[in-house]
């Protein structure tokens, strides 16, 4: 998102910006809050100046920017608890934030609120090699956790593209996935316990020491709740043993439909690869230009497939996968001969976003998920839509689980093009819903996808979400204006649709 951040840093909020709850906090309350925060925290942890708050004004989706009233950086769980109590007492909105790598403006600050930056709670508290679990503070980076347990032959499975920077707390808030979640699941499938602080400042532990707890699954509800229900202060995760062998192969196709069909056929044959990614022609060319790993630039689609397991298992699967790819018209298949070659095949995929950033001044990343069988149809339809807007779209995505990441290329310096890109993005998301999918597979709703929420959900469902939110946060102080649209917002949306 480098390109996007640099060129758009002074760009105004786009047209789809959702209404944000206006704080009911009085000026006197705000002054009291600031005074108490300054008493509570070290001077460097309470940031008031515009200049010093500037780095926090957006997350990874930099087109949405807002300076907070005040930024606080707690160092202990007690700090977090006290800050939440004060916000509750003085009725000041609060937005939690990790590393700010999110892609839905879920961590965009509130103009009249506190931005709670959790990155200083960054300790790995306990590693239990026997039970293969780790207990960490929310500010621990995703990759740092895997690095800390690699000598034990273990790793933490969810691996979002931002894993070098993103935090486990942020992963919990967004229910993050990654290239390996086809086989190993999302955050919700890999977290055993979460300790959170409620807006009243109470500590609640969800999940237990064992595998299942009696009663409603509050832990699953909390994971992916985008900072609307509470603030994570501790996470216990499951670790997995590293597979003895990993094999990567790549298949090229002369059409995206053929590649899409190959993916559906492979899964239908009972093979669940550790990862199964697809890139289209524009993405292949951009990646090859950037990293030069020998991708066939004439191909219309490329599949990158990773298999893992014991030697015998991998050999067995490799034969089936190669055969299946051939049967579905692969024009070439390349099997990595060693770890270096495997790394090279992955490198292009991993560098695809920055690579696309090189061929366009700006790009906008979408995140719809669709049934696997609809990949060919949806990709074709996306190209038609793009043409009608006069924009280009590159596709790099998790084909195995139908999670699309269309990258809309545009130039924000051209008047109106950002708005066009947004409209195209909205059309792509509603297309995903129309074919039986969802507007977001792993990036979250945040502020960005609020306009599409009433398209995916009926009023009764949205009202149920709001009642659930109120059960945790009756005054809607936690991350207001994100995730779940208000009743008024929905009414306006419906009247626009019918008008």
């Amino acid at each position: 998102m480098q390109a996007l951040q640099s060129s758009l840093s002074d760009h105004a909020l786009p047209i789809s910006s959702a209404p944000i709850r206006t704080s009911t906090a009085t000026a006197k309350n705000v002054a009291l809050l600031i005074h108490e925060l300054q008493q509570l925290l070290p001077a460097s942890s309470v940031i008031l100046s515009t200049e010093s708050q500037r780095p926090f004004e957006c997350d990874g989706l930099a087109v949405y920017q807002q300076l907070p009233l005040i930024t606080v950086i707690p160092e202990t769980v007690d700090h977090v608890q006290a800050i939440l109590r004060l916000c509750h007492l003085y009725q000041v909105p609060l937005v939690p934030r990790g590393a700010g790598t999110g892609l839905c403006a879920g961590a965009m600050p509130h103009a009249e609120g506190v931005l709670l930056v959790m990155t200083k709670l960054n300790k790995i508290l306990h590693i239990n090699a026997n039970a293969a679990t780790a207990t960490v503070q929310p500010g621990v980076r995703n990759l740092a956790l895997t690095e800390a347990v690699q000598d034990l032959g273990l790793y933490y499975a969810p691996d979002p593209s931002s894993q070098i920077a993103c935090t486990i707390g942020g992963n919990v808030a967004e229910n993050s996935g990654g290239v390996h979640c086809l086989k190993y699941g999302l955050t919700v499938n890999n977290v055993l316990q979460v300790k959170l602080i409620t807006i009243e400042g109470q500590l609640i532990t969800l999940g237990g020491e064992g595998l299942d707890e009696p009663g409603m699954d509050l832990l699953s509800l909390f994971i992916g709740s985008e900072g609307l229900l509470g603030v994570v202060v501790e996470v216990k995760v499951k670790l997995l043993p590293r597979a003895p062998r990993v094999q990567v192969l790549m298949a090229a196709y002369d059409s995206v439909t053929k590649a899409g069909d190959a993916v559906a056929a492979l899964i239908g044959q009972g093979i669940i690869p550790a990862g199964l990614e697809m890139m289209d022609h524009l993405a292949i060319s951009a990646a090859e230009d950037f990293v030069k790993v020998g991708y066939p630039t004439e191909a219309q689609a490329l599949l990158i497939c990773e298999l893992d397991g014991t030697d015998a298992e991998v050999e067995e699967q490799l034969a089936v996968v190669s055969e299946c790819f051939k049967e579905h018209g692969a024009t070439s298949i390349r099997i990595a001969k060693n770890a270096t070659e495997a790394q090279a095949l992955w490198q292009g995929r991993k560098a695809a976003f920055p690579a696309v950033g090189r061929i366009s001044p700006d790009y906008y990343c979408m995140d719809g998920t669709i049934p696997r069988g609809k990949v060919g149809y949806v990709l074709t339809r996306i190209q038609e839509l793009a043409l009608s807007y006069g924009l280009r779209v590159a596709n790099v995505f998790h084909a195995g689980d139908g999670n699309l990441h269309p990258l809309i290329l545009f130039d924000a310096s051209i008047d109106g093009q950002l708005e066009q890109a947004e409209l195209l993005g909205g059309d792509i998301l509603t297309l995903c819903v129309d074919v039986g999918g969802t507007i977001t597979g792993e990036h979250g709703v945040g502020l960005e996808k609020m306009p599409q929420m009433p398209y995916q959900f009926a009023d009764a469902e949205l009202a149920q979400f709001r009642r659930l939110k109120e059960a945790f946060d009756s005054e809607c102080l936690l991350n207001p204006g994100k995730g779940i649209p208000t009743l008024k917002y929905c009414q306006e949306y419906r009247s626009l649709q019918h008008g």
Partner: protein
Amino acid sequence: MGDLTQQLVEQIQHAHATKTALNIQAGNTKASLGRHTSGQVIDVSQHTGVLSYNPTELVITARAGTKIEHLNDLLAQTQQRLPFEPPAFAGEATIGGTVAANQSGPSRPWFGSVKDSLLGLGLINGYGQAMQFGGQVMKNVAGFDVTRLQCGAMGGLGLITQVSIKLLPAFKLTQTLTFEMTAQAALDTMQHWSNLSLPITGMCHFQNKGQSLLYVRLQGGISGVEDAQVFLGGESLLPAKADAFWQALNQGTLMQRQDHQTLWCWGGPSDAPFDRVPNTCMINWAGAQRWVLEDTSNTRSQGLEKSLCQYQGGNRLGEVNGTVSVPQKALQQRIKHAFDPHSILNAGRVYSWM
């Protein structure tokens, strides 16, 4: 077979208007679990049928009253399976009840519980509103996860009308090995093997009739299972006998509880020492689940340890699940109220206060 959604909606709307307590029931195989409650039966057993199943999508959507046995038979035809291996309870268990009671089988530590495979569901809340949450796709983070919230709620947040479940390919080969060893030795062994990337799908230690055996089930591709069998050694169990063992374990009949006995279930870290749970007679889930069978007269009356549940038998009118913290109790009550303001749906099944 048919769609009874409208009828169920009307029944719940009427109960909401008249504040009548309802008891959701389909196969009635979970009556011995949770607390005993009274209420007018709302019958979901005829609300059945597979709504969509496309093997290449690895997803099935079925109405809540559809039997587990029916799903298992259907999926076997295309070499697929329900990943969480739910108990079929003599063929009567339904998919709706399985989700509500969060029932997963011996493969739980390796293939996850119900929530790990649940993609979406239809739900009628206590207002009598039919709603859809989640979906049929693999990844979906739009809105709160109301879908997985239902796992274990025992119908207290709504009547489940239909579910969509992620499937997995069937195993090509299954092999069960047994090893004679003490419970503590079995705990150590299970820990060790769990961390070795072996195709294990079940590890259970059972003491019965003077025998103390560790059962290890291997499932997966042919070569992977064969290699693991050579690596682990042990005695190989005949398929029919092995199948009967895992079935009995899954359906809770392995320990043959008598009427005067209470069956306790403990859930905790798999590496907890054996004496953490005194009088354990069976260890499942590689150590993460332990079972104690006691005369009801011995019942632990001093309040339940959080991780201990009075699974079957004993007094079912008092609390059967461990205590929760005061803030969490209040939170759960507010959530119950958010779905079911008059507390008409399966009230008191999990806790007396909910």
